[in-house]
């Protein structure tokens, strides 16, 4: 069995471990879902104040603010949840005292990193579908059926970007120990300049020009085009051509940063310290 295959086969063990740990905190599941429902309700009421004629159109379809924001909210939740959890996965191992126990097994650091968030990457899409379902049923969100698969493909192309940012944040946290504040600030900036909750055109011209090239803005607009405008593969393809190289670059940066952070910890002898 090749080394890569034997490492990949370890991932289900991480998923099982994290599921068992998460299941031991059943109340957290319930409060998470309640929080999502509350968020949807909040955007519904805010949406009542927004004139739909001022909203952009997708595939010639007019959309309500709630529909516009729902896609942003889905992607925003994906980014926030993904980034924070990827970043804190290794930190949690460090705080629990289990990082060193893992590092003394013949498991590659990247497998530990990947494995530590594998459960989340299964749970987050389930969480997003649930949220979408709640909004669709409760507030009449109109999703174009033909756009669902292209949107998922786009999400797939976007995943390495979130992954890369998360791993880079993990590297910062392993090195500096405290990174929650920095991470929250980063998430806020990302949300602000990515058009998640309001159209980018509302930003000052110079900022709007920069923001349009932001991979998150590319991903959210592409998903809106698919889900709300029903755009086809050609549109998604052109977005992916721009998005995938950026995603891969972010992932490569994250991996290199994490590797360097861990090597530094080994050199200084502070792997298990927190």
């Amino acid at each position, binding site marked *: 069995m090749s080394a890569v295959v034997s490492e990949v086969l370890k991932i289900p063990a991480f998923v099982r471990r994290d599921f*068992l740990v998460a299941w031991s905190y059943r109340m957290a599941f319930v409060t998470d879902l309640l929080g999502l429902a509350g968020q949807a309700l909040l955007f519904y009421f805010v949406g009542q104040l927004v004139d739909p004629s001022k909203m952009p159109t997708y595939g010639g379809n007019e959309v309500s603010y709630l529909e516009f924001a729902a896609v942003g909210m889905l992607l925003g939740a994906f980014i926030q949840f993904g980034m924070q959890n990827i970043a804190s996965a290794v930190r949690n191992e460090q705080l629990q*005292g*289990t990082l060193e126990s893992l590092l*003394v097994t*013949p498991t590659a650091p990247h497998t530990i990193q990947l494995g530590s968030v594998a459960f989340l990457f299964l749970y987050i899409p389930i969480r997003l579908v649930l949220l979408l379902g709640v909004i669709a049923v409760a507030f009449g969100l109109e999703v174009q059926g033909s756009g669902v698969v292209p949107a998922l493909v786009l999400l797939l192309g976007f995943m390495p970007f979130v992954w890369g940012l998360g791993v880079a944040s993990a590297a910062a946290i392993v090195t500096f120990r405290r990174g929650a504040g920095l991470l929250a600030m980063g998430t806020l900036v990302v949300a602000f300049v990515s058009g998640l909750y309001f159209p980018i055109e509302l930003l000052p011209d110079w900022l709007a020009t920069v923001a349009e090239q932001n991979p998150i803005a590319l991903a959210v607009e592409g998903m809106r085009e698919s889900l709300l405008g029903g755009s086809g593969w050609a549109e998604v393809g052109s977005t992916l051509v721009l998005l995938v190289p950026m995603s891969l670059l972010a992932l490569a940066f994250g991996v290199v940063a994490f590797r360097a952070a861990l090597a530094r910890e080994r*050199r200084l002898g502070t*792997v298990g310290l927190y």
Partner: protein
Amino acid sequence: MIEEAVRESRSARALRLVPTTGIDAESLVRRFRRTLALDGVSLTVAPGEIHALLGPNGAGKTTLVRILSGVIAPTSGTVSVAGLDAVSNPRELRTMLGIVPSGDRSFYLRISGFENLVFFARMHGLRRKAAGQRASELLEHVGLAEASGKRVGEYSHGMQKRLSVARALLTDPRVMLVDEATHDLDPEGSRRVQALVGDAAERGAAVLWATQRLEEIRGFARSVTLLDRGRVRFQGSVPRLLEHAVPRRYVVRLRNGRPGEIELQEAQRALGRAARITPPLEEGSEHHVIALSEDAVLGDAVAALARANVQVLACRQERSEIEEAFLALTQERPS
């Protein structure tokens, strides 16, 4: 005394004719910024051997264990574990290594002992079914079969340590590194952990047993390295270590030939320069400490007390021989 001990350890190394497949560390140096944690430490542990690593707090024991496990790199020096270079092959090395860490927090406390072992077995490359079987076998072996479904957070210290030993045995390791495994265990818990590790050594594992509990190495470890402030103060067998013990303080139980407490001044006068006697350890107690002077022997002191009509009912060393040797070696500083 220290020079002699180091000379002894050097000659022991010189006699080593074949490379071992246990642990072989040579001139290890590890610096943490300005602190020199290890200063030229060399150590050999053969397969099937239990080698005790002694030393006071901050001696460098844990640093050495972490280097041997590949968690941290040495600043200089070479280290081979199970025949592999620990610096260049850390992952291959870990397939042959079983580690019992010193801390308690090395398990996932919210999940069961069984699930923890299965998880770590899978990290060692075992498939799910094989991992489950191995976990069950080991839980049985360490006496935790009945608690296998309980969350590790509900385990006692002793149970967690035994689980830790079980984890270290998951892959029948060729080398075991045991770091302060018994420091917070009761005597029965310590004995069980020692027995489990002893079994592993009998099956051929080279064991490095880092401890501060000096008495536990007697009859257990074949050889000893004594570290102090990152340097080797002694290396050799346990009997050779005991040669460094020169007990000079004894707890004696004294009684007067007549009723009442003993007259300290009278006893001290009888002892003369041979020894100093201290007041009772507690008021009304018959237990005193006598400290022999450099050239005095115990028999002379006891005879002097008898001549002064003080009966010596019992006498024991204030500290064990191992403690005496430990203190003799760690309290002296090389010039």
